[in-house]
């Protein structure tokens, strides 16, 4: 599984790429692989207030729907509009073209509650056992 350096990861298999006070949010390669072909994404609304660990989006695959939880607290700046017509981008490019939304962080200290790439790689290895 691909777990790029420099991102923050959650136990629920979301990632966040932090750029200053802003972060891009998506689901991990492990998550997209487990879900299979993704067919629909219900992103949060622009301007919506999110809490760290709170529900923020739904990702549907052919087989099932699963909830996405926000890695950080903050406000939604915009969503990835490409995904409404091309949800398969989450499968093809989970860390780049398949990001789900961008947000402004309200508390950068929340990073402490997240994993780095090495920590997440170890975490998913543990899940496989």
């Amino acid at each position, binding site marked *: 599984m691909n777990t790029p350096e420099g991102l923050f990861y959650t136990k629920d298999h979301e990632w966040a790429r932090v750029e200053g006070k802003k972060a891009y949010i998506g689901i991990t390669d492990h998550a997209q692989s487990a879900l*299979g*072909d993704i*067919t*629909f994404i*219900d992103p949060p609304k622009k301007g919506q207030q999110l809490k760290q660990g709170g529900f923020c989006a739904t990702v*549907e*695959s*052919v*087989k*099932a*729907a699963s909830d996405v939880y926000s890695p950080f607290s903050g406000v939604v700046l915009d969503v990835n509009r490409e995904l409404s017509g091309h*949800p*398969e981008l989450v*499968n093809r490019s989970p860390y780049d073209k398949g990001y789900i939304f961008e947000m402004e962080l309200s508390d950068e200290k929340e990073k402490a509650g997240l994993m780095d790439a090495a920590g997440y790689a170890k975490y998913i290895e543990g899940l496989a056992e």
Partner: protein
Amino acid sequence: MDDQEQLQKTPLYASHLSLNAKMAPFGGWIMPIQYEGILAEHAHTRGAVSLFDICHMGEFMFEGDAVASGLDRIVTQKISSMPLSSCRYGFMLNRRGGVIDDLIVYRIKERSWMLVVNAATIAGDEANILANLRGEYKFDNVSSRLGKLDLQGPRSGEVITKVFGPGPADLGYYRFGEFTLWGQRCIISCSGYTGELGYEIYISNDYVVKLWNLLLSEPDVKPAGLGCRDTLRLEMGYPLYGHDLDTAHSPVSAGLDKFVDFSKDFIGKGALLEEQKNGPKERLVYFKAGSRRSPRNGFGIFAAGARVGTVTSGSFSPSLSAGIGMGYVSSSGCRLGTAADVGQDKPEIPVTFVRKPFYSKT
């Protein structure tokens, strides 16, 4: 993984693992859900030809007089009048008219039939049949010895001809023949669960792996899992036993009366006639979402905000790029063309009631 150890494996288990299939439990078996991906396998079946491991399904061989033994009463098809080498789809019912299983009957000879049943219902079906047979007959549950591969897709005719010679491709729909491969007797029917031209091949378990490899060596053929088998059958509006059919619903309720022969006697007939007269309490309906959101098994169906039924099958339709589903409703307001909603506990996904099949070639 104790659960997985108790699950049954088909002769192709190792083949699936070597193809990196995602495996999951289905009907007491550990089966391949997908190899490359459900959408790719779905598209390949609609556009070329796919190979499915269906060894989990059950087969019963019967020899005797269908009417005198009572077999003709156990199923809703009139099997005593079937032409030789034909297949007929129908049901096994309980006395209340509930569906114990849906099955396809093959008439092999004047006095011999093969019954093809669902994997999860093999033991229950066998018990029901044996409890209702009488007099002289031979019944053999060959499920654990007979393998089954489904070859499905518009190019399946060319592939079956290459492997078995010119015979199978001449079969009409729902007709079968007996063919020989490696000295083994095989039954091949022109039928399937995808809506495409296709063949269901029955061969001894000992030769399943060899046949699987031979068919997969054809450049057009790719393996396909139960994931796309489900999206393919759902696009056709074909019911899946345990979801869209069960002992709580009858073929009348499911709108499948045409697979019931009312000209003969059968178990459950009284209940079905009564239900036809009074109208069923629930009806199986088909609906399409106005978006890519998928109805899911167990979701509620809501008309004018009130819950009127339950989704029994739902998925994203790759051919329609929209959510589709079927389910039972109690309301007579759920007519073709009318709007409703489905959702886990509340109306969430707007849908419209439509006619099946959801997908057609033209």
